[in-house]
């Protein structure tokens, strides 16, 4: 049965290593780390004091008019910059046939920047005689809370800003499957195009959890690296000495459309999405399935969807967070799919070693690195990988990027709570 081919014609990114695709890619190939002490809030006393932050970013540099988005949250501003880059590369402003009700916005965006210090201060001020006085809390909160600041925290507001920026009236989805969100968004958006429900999709993710609430939450889970004396070497996916992931922030956005449409309007095709698979571990909220069955199921489903066999995959962009558990389970899952002999698995790397973990935005950003790997025939490295772990015995492209003949790339994302997603892409044809 023939089905519509889904191609990528635009991409944009704002992340700790760059505010556009090419500078990000140059940094990744050079093995540079985007991680440094936290400056965007007072984190000096937390168990973890560093993160991968977006620095010196001004939305006005990216949009013709940033004024309508003045109230947008930090991550929404990243998304608008990334979306504009993608839109421009796809040259959609020149597309006079574009039916704006047939453009989907399918994002995997996080909640806004939770105002933890403010909320904590309000509950502290409303603490009377050993308990929270609800009346007092209401009175002082009513005085200080701002309707726009509060409403912008809803995760669907990022898509609302994108719709406004490009004057779109098609379907809007936002999914928040934790660390897998933007991979899931892209996979589902591709499905809408395949089925002919929309002509074009603006898809990806945006997130910033570099705030007191996010750092508190992940520190309490002991999921973060605490290598405070050496931030740039803290993100060590697949290394024996890894001690957790590094919080990052940013956004990446892609433009998807059918192959026929792209060629008819003369758009440059960057890559083709050939396979998508999703699964649930159905194991525990705190742990991944130690057998890696769920992650393997997502990879198998993506391969089946693409009509490819494991041997067709030339490069895997790992979820590779740098936590003890993820890297071990993901390695096991990859071996379940590609064979127990580690030599059978394709070269696999984790750009989180440089970018940190962009949480909901991670998958879209990693997919962009796969597109670039296919374009330039070079695989980005896993940096900070110096001490092999016997449980992580694949070729992780340690420390230096590597030239290779790459035709098909796979990108994995695994969300906290057990939601797994895999995308498979091929290069421009």
């Amino acid at each position, binding site marked *: 049965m023939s089905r519509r081919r889904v191609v990528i014609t635009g991409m944009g990114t704002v992340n700790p290593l760059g505010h556009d695709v090419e500078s990000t890619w140059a940094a990744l190939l050079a093995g540079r780390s985007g991680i440094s002490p936290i400056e965007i809030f*007072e984190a*000096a*006393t*937390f*168990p973890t004091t560093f993160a991968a932050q977006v620095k010196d970013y001004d939305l006005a540099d990216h949009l013709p008019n940033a004024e309508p988005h003045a109230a947008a949250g930090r991550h929404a501003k990243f998304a608008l910059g990334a979306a504009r880059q993608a839109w421009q590369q796809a040259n959609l402003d020149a597309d006079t046939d574009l039916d704006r*009700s047939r453009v989907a916005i399918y994002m995997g965006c996080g909640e806004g920047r939770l105002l933890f*210090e403010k909320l*904590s*201060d309000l*509950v*502290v*001020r*409303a603490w009377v005689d050993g*308990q*929270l006085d*609800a*009346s007092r809390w*209401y009175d002082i*909160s*009513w005085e200080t*809370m*701002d*309707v*726009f600041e509060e*409403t912008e925290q*809803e995760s*669907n*507001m990022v*898509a*609302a800003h994108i*719709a*406004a920026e490009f*004057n779109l*009236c*098609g*379907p*809007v*989805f*936002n*999914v*928040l*499957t934790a660390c897998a969100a933007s991979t*899931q968004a892209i996979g*589902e958006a591709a499905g809408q195009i395949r*089925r002919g*429900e929309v002509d074009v999709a603006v898809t990806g993710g945006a997130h910033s959890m570099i705030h007191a609430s996010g750092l*508190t939450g992940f520190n*309490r*889970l002991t999921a973060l690296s605490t290598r405070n004396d050496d931030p740039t070497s803290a993100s060590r996916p697949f290394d024996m000495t890894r001690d957790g992931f590094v919080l990052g922030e940013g956004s990446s956005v892609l433009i998807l459309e059918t192959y026929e449409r792209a060629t008819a309007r003369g758009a440059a095709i960057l890559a083709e999405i050939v396979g998508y698979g999703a699964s*649930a*571990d159905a*194991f525990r*909220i705190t742990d991944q399935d130690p057998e890696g069955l769920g992650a393997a*199921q997502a990879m198998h*489903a993506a391969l089946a969807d693409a009509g490819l066999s494991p041997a067709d995959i030339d490069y895997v962009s790992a979820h590779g967070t740098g936590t003890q558990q993820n890297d071990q389970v993901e390695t096991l899952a990859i071996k379940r799919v590609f064979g127990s002999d580690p030599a059978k698995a394709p070269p696999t790397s984790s750009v989180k070693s440089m970018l940190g973990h962009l949480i909901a935005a991670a998958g879209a950003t990693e997919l962009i690195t796969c597109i670039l790997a296919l374009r330039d025939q070079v695989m980005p490295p896993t940096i900070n990988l110096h001490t092999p772990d016997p449980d992580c015995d694949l070729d992780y492209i340690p420390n230096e990027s590597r030239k290779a003949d790459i035709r098909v790339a796979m990108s994995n994302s695994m*969300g*906290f*709570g*057990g*939601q797994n997603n895999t995308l498979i892409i091929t290069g421009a044809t």
Partner: protein
Amino acid sequence: MADRRVAITGIGVVTAAGIGIEPFWQLLCSGASAVGPIDLFDTSRYPTRVGGEVPDFSARSHVPKSYRKSVKVMARDIQLAVATADQAFRHSGLVTKGTDESAEMTVDPKRLGCNIGAGLICCELDELAAAAITSVDANGIFDIAKWGAEGINNLNPLWLLKYLPNMLSCHVTIIHSAMGPSNCITCGDVSAHLAVGEASRYVTDGIVDAVIAGGAESKLHPLSLLRQALLKRLSLTGDDGLGGHCRPFDVAHEGTALGEGGGLLILEDLAHARRRGATIYAEVVGFGAACDPAGIKVTEANVGSLHLAAAKALADAGMSPDQVDLLIAHGTGVAAEDELESDAWKQVLGDHRPPAAAITGAIGLMSAGAGGAELAAAAMALHTQTIPATANFKALADGCDLNLAGQSRPGNLTYALSGAFTIGGQSAACALKRYDPEQ
């Protein structure tokens, strides 16, 4: 068109009416409202003191015994979702690890999906306050440096997991051993329609045999209620304690009343459902979604181009507007929203004026859960050939033109259309069809 058809074989609802489909459907047919004083927290200072609270709710009685200890790491939204899922699976007759831990599942776990819409879950203020109070400076002001050094240790290590929106789906997939695709849509009031629409594609694309889809949320939280008050969307409770009710499209509509709960449907490949002899309540035959770029102006009423979403759902179903026999409106009761919504339906249905109902007056606005309950009502209407009542409705407001009634009515219903919209300017609609065993 897809060969596979999407059967609704289970309906789970947890609402102010109580646990399960029976009290819910009884309430909707009675014309009464379950909205009443909020007991969950002290609302004495709030401009609105009523809401659709789920009565006597204890999540522990809705999870398998072995899972009870996990309830303490579930925010109320998650607890409501888990209870709703329990209802939905039991209603469907499917055997899962959650409905019977010792039995064989009657659906392949790898082909059982999950797609549960969720809201922005607020942390429990009492819990935060008790931890934060340990981190104040000499002036009694919250001190972030102290918090980072010591205070955070007063929070439960799993604190974050209690509030992640994907945890609605994650707990449900774990309890019921659903290993197929699992998604979590967070688009406010349209989340559940989007979830059901997307999940129905899982079925027609052939990647699942069954999927649980819809949404759940509790807006009955001090911060959520405050946010809605800031948006000036609430119906006000006077000093006399009266008022604050939601009266969709009624002359006296003056705002919404918040609710809580969940609505989840079991969507099943029709052939799979027939093979196991399942009761089929209705079919999902069409889906559409849209948005309005003006939606970023969050303090202005906006229905997210609902007319486009509805038109797409009809086109997807291969229906003409005059085939719609029943309309389930979103009906927030906010006057400006009611008018825009009524206009949107008129735009898509033209002169055709089918019987309509809005259930928000009866149970309150459940946000991410709202669409699930609305689609549950649509499915039950088709199954029982009954048009539910619109609670609190007496006479049409100026600028509204829907065929509503304060009492339930018998109907001859083949197709139902249900749509919703949300803050941010997004909308979605689903078309449902009466199940005919002969077809």
